């Protein structure tokens, strides 16, 4: 008995000390001071201190772990151990200054390190009396929609924990209305009398842009079996004849888009429901343009010569109609085939410049290890490896053989065709002339890949399509906007102008 006690009592004490120690360890490792001892990111510390979670108005301060770990009992220890090990590894092996902390604050990435269950743990009541009308609609949608991982609190409340300059989640009525220094206004558009590249001028604005004459020809549309990263929808390869047309040198810029927005935007709403109600009474010649956006369409990246983003396919089509009206020419979206013909510029290789997609695919550490030379692709394309995580201005890249810039990368581009995976096999046999795609469908073709994509999706033949439902998920307005996508900032478009009697064809 004595011997038992000799062992038992010290054992008991040691055990208790260990448990107390472990508990103390958990507490210590959950303090803000401990977090920032490894996470050396002064920007994130600062933006947290400027956020509503730091100054909540009630005196309660929300700590790092309250958002960046799940609540206790919901895999708390597991996540703590997992992220702790990862952080230790990074601390020893990486330079924290080399991380792009802003990139980590982007929605898709932030979803991975902000726990919705933690949001809900504190914000139990989604219908507080102080909630606005828009908030009621949005929270009702959240409550009634089947839970999907994409529907996360931070879709709308991204700036709750870290302040973001210029972040708006509200109707942005002043968007695009900032007065700029008075510039000379173009009184009329440019007359085009022969098939040559020209610089278009948008009347009543100071905006101009280059249109490149693309000669007609025959080319092979699609990718041959065996091309790296090829998908089934890129075939079968078809011979296509294309008539001459003009194509914009660069993707429609914010300057161009805002000229349209300033001249046509309307207050209030125009929706399908309303169309149903009022019938087809809208007059044919007056183009009524976009309603004010919700939030910040340029994502705070700046406007000017950067490609315009966040607007809908419907808005892009309306832009073309408007541009045709004010210039007296026939502007429209390119067909998918025109787009690929223009992108290839006579080449038959995966890109319009030399190189193997597989060698360009790797980024970061893997690229450095494999010692693949990405100089060539870097000089032509804004993509995941060099963007960094946002659109860039067109002056940073070299043009393709036709003189077009950013055909691939930067932003993906709307084409006028309905998307169908087997579209190429649906055309009649033999040489096809100026095909326009399937007659109907649910989603439109987008081409060219974007700054979010890796090399494989940037090949001339790669196809993609719009995802209307997903791209409107967090628009809290009722009804959702037909002009702006709330959750799509990687798609823009490029205009083509028809070579017809208005542009010198006889």
């Amino acid at each position, binding site marked *: 008995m004595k011997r038992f006690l000799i062992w038992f009592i010290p054992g008991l004490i040691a055990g208790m000390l260990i448990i107390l120690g472990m508990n103390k360890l958990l507490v210590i490792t959950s303090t803000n001071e401990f977090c920032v001892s490894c996470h050396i990111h002064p920007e994130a510390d600062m933006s947290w201190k400027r956020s509503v979670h730091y100054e909540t108005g009630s005196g309660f301060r929300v700590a790092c772990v309250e958002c960046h770990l799940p609540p206790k009992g919901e895999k708390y220890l597991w996540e703590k151990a997992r992220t702790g090990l990862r952080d230790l590894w990074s601390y020893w092996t990486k330079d924290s200054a080399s991380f792009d902390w802003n990139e980590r604050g982007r929605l898709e990435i932030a979803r991975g390190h902000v726990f919705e269950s933690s949001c809900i743990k504190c914000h*139990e*009541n*989604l*219908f*507080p*009396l102080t*909630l606005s*009308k828009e908030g*009621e*609609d949005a*929270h*009702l*949608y959240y*409550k*009634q929609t*089947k839970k999907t991982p994409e529907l996360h609190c931070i879709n709308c409340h991204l700036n709750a924990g870290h302040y973001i300059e210029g972040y708006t989640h509200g109707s942005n009525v002043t968007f695009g209305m900032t007065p700029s220094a008075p510039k000379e206004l173009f009184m009329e558009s440019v007359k085009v009398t022969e098939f040559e590249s020209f610089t278009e001028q948008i009347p009543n604005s100071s905006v101009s842009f280059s249109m490149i004459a693309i000669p007609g020809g025959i080319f092979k549309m699609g990718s041959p079996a065996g091309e790296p990263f090829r998908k089934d929808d890129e075939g079968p390869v078809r011979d296509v004849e294309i008539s001459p047309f003009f194509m914009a040198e660069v993707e429609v810029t914010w300057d161009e888009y805002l000229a349209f927005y300033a001249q046509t935007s309307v207050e209030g*709403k125009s*929706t399908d*429901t*309303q169309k*149903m*109600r*009022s*019938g087809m*009474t809208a007059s044919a010649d007056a183009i009524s343009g976009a309603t004010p956006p919700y939030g910040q369409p340029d994502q705070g990246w700046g406007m000017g010569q950067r490609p315009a983003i966040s607007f809908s396919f419907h808005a892009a089509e309306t832009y073309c109609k408007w541009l045709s009206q004010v210039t007296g020419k026939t502007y429209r979206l390119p067909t998918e085939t025109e787009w690929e013909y223009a992108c290839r510029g006579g080449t038959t290789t995966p890109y319009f410049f030399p190189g193997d997609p597989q060698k360009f695919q790797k980024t970061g550490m893997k690229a450095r290890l494999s010692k693949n030379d990405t100089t060539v692709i870097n000089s032509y394309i804004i993509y995941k490896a060099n963007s960094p995580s946002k659109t860039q201005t067109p002056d940073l890249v070299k043009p393709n053989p036709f003189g077009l810039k950013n055909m691939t990368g930067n932003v993906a581009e709307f084409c006028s065709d309905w998307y169908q995976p087997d579209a190429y096999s649906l055309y009649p046999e033999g040489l096809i002339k100026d095909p326009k795609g399937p007659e109907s469908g649910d989603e439109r073709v987008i081409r060219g890949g974007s700054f979010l994509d890796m090399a494989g999706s940037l090949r001339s033949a790669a196809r993609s399509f719009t995802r209307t439902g997903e791209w409107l998920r967090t628009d809290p307005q*009722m*009804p*959702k906007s037909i002009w702006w996508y709330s959750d799509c900032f990687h798609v823009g478009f490029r205009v083509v102008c028809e070579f017809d009697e208005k542009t010198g064809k006889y």
Partner: protein
Amino acid sequence: MKKPSISRRKFLGKAVTAGAAGIVAPSIITGCAREPKKKIPEVSWLDLAPDGPVLKAGVIGCGGRGTGAAINFLNAGPNLQVVAIGDTFKDRVDQCRESILKEKGQEVALENCFVGFDAYQRVIDAGVDIVIMATPPYFRPEQLAAAVAARKHIFTEKPVCVDPAGARSVMATALRAKEMDLTIVTGTQRRHQRNYVATWQQVLGGAIGQIAGANAYWNQSKLWHREANKSWTEMEWMIRDWVNWTWLSGDHIVEQHVHNLDVINWFTASHPVKAVGMGSRHRRVTGDQYDNFSVDFVYPDGMHMHSMCRQINGCANNVSERIQGTKGFTNCYDTIYDLAGTEVWKYGYPLDDEGKPSSRKMMDPYLQEHIDMVTAIRTGKPFNELENTAISTLTAIMGRISAYTGKETTWEEMMNSDLRLGPKVFDFGKVDMPKDIPVPGEPYVPQA
């Protein structure tokens, strides 16, 4: 006065009833739970609410139903008072005050009798615990929001809105009220009617197999109308003639037929996702409403409900529901039949003086819903029917819009529609808004 002696256990049993009837069924939207469930909630009924500290109610909307609801409330149990009343019109307030005095011996203080468009807010602010609402449904979303903001329990008549924007507002108010543990009873009294609830339990237990189809009817004679009166402004006339104006009543498919649609939603624990309807106007004297509707509603799993409603004299009348299952069918009311039409179960009514089962001896559901409300408040077991009733109201609105436009309407369209009926400016004078009677296939422009 004889106090009802009720044990705590019975309270709990009752709370389960309320919960079952009110909440369990359509927590909805996640889809269709039409598989026969083996576990049937136990239901026990109280004939009188338990005693407790005084509960004070205020009445908003002093017409026949508002006054009737006030008296039902006072009959629901001991220590209940109506201490404030309000209406747009003074004659209504006076009549209501007199009826309460005559029938229940309670005198509402004159300083607590409010007249005008803002009467509802003054009733809410008059120190009441419960607000009874029976104004035309157009006003309901705003009044519900104000009452919940003031943390009042509510008895509200159905329907709870007349348009999609109103429905969404009420849904949000319902969820807010749940967060506040408020009790809200919504005048869908079939859910408090003992034979209906017993039949619902049978169906839940699989008595008719899987639900395969449904019918809902509200075919009756002409309701009523009021001719314009020279001493009234147009606004006053419209409100007094409210059952003939869509912006005020929602049209009769919403105003009355919502009861039957709500029964189908309740029994199926779901709501339709789309509708194609038709309707027309032949006999109405005033207003812009239709006389009849016929709507094909489709539920998430493809089940169809046919709904019809009419207000025309001299035609076949029928107010009922019918649900067809794979093993039989039911009138939802008191009987289960097998596929051959043979009665296999019948609700056991209380016996009358001659010893025969009689539905007349059954508890009045209009009283039962108030007993259930007071019991829920006094036992601290809140229940809240508002979201379900908003869903059933929007179901009816979806059918109405389809009939008015001639087009298919979907639930998603309803949840995304910004349609808000009624005039933009609200005062006693000319009412500036479109008053055209909708023509299917033509543009439908109800908004000013």
